[in-house]
């Protein structure tokens, strides 16, 4: 390869790299995923301990509360608590994710709120907003069995949609959330475990892989 070719190749490589960097938000930190996973595990542990010894969510037949059926007073109280827990978990996970990403950018001296970051945020907010509508409807109408599958599937589809604007690896996390969500639809009794698997374990696994793949290099440089 002569000098002229070498030079052309370098220029083309640089063009590719700038196209990639400028259109994707590549500063999501692996710690963001790990943090989200930990908050999800703690929350599901709490929910498990609340639900373990009380039968508020069981009817006489031992089945979960029927859709549209009236809630017992105890069940109404617990579902309110669970809802507050869910909202708190979401907010904590999100704030943590933003913090770790911001911190990674501070270290690297990069800007956090770029055009790609805006695109990523919008691409996440649309399906997540639809998810919030669905889940609210399920809560209001006591279709509790659909909350876990819906949250997993919508979240998974959100990640697949967002993979255009950040690391493509996030697609695989999205796919596994969708699969776990579909399984949860068929085994509602395992809902809480599958929720902990999808939002807890999978996030921690993904965050760890991302940290080793991308962040470690940045820290070393």
């Amino acid at each position, binding site marked *: 390869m002569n000098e002229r070719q070498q030079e052309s190749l370098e*220029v*083309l490589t640089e063009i590719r790299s700038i*196209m990639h960097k400028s259109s994707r938000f590549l500063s999501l930190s692996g710690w963001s995923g790990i943090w989200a996973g930990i908050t999800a595990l703690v929350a599901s542990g709490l929910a498990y301990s609340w639900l373990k010894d009380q039968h508020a969510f069981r009817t006489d037949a031992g089945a979960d509360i029927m859709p549209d059926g009236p809630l017992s007073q105890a069940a109404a109280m617990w579902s309110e608590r669970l809802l507050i827990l869910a909202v708190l978990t979401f907010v904590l996970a999100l704030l943590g994710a933003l913090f770790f990403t911001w911190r990674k950018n501070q270290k690297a001296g990069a800007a956090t709120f770029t055009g790609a970051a805006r695109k990523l945020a919008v691409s996440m907010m649309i399906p997540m907003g639809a998810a919030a509508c669905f889940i609210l409807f399920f809560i209001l109408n006591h279709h509790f069995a659909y909350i876990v599958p819906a949250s997993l599937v919508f979240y998974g589809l959100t990640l697949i949609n967002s993979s255009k604007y950040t690391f493509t690896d996030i697609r695989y996390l999205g796919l596994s959330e969708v699969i776990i969500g579909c399984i949860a639809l068929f085994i509602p009794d395992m809902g809480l475990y599958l929720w902990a698997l999808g939002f807890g374990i999978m996030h921690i696994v993904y965050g760890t892989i991302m940290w080793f793949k991308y962040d470690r290099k940045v820290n070393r440089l």
Partner: protein
Amino acid sequence: MRKELDQLNKIFDSRIRIGIMSALIVNEEVNFNELKALLDATDGNLASHLKTLEEHEFIRVEKGFIGRKTNTIYSITAEGEKAFRSHINALEKIIKNLQ
């Protein structure tokens, strides 16, 4: 070989200009500060290269404000896109032909 070299656009000789065009071809619009961070250029240097591209009508400039701060947004023109694509093609030819 001569022919390919002739197709290389002199305007894209600079790394910064190549970088600006690369960012603008995949994004509808990019503002000054994002370009600066992306290309690791100084204000003056980046501004002069942007000026050159604007003079050749390869990019469009829109001046706006975010609060009190000026926010200058750049986007690629049809002509700029055409010129940049044929520049990339010429680079590819150079690599392929001599292998």
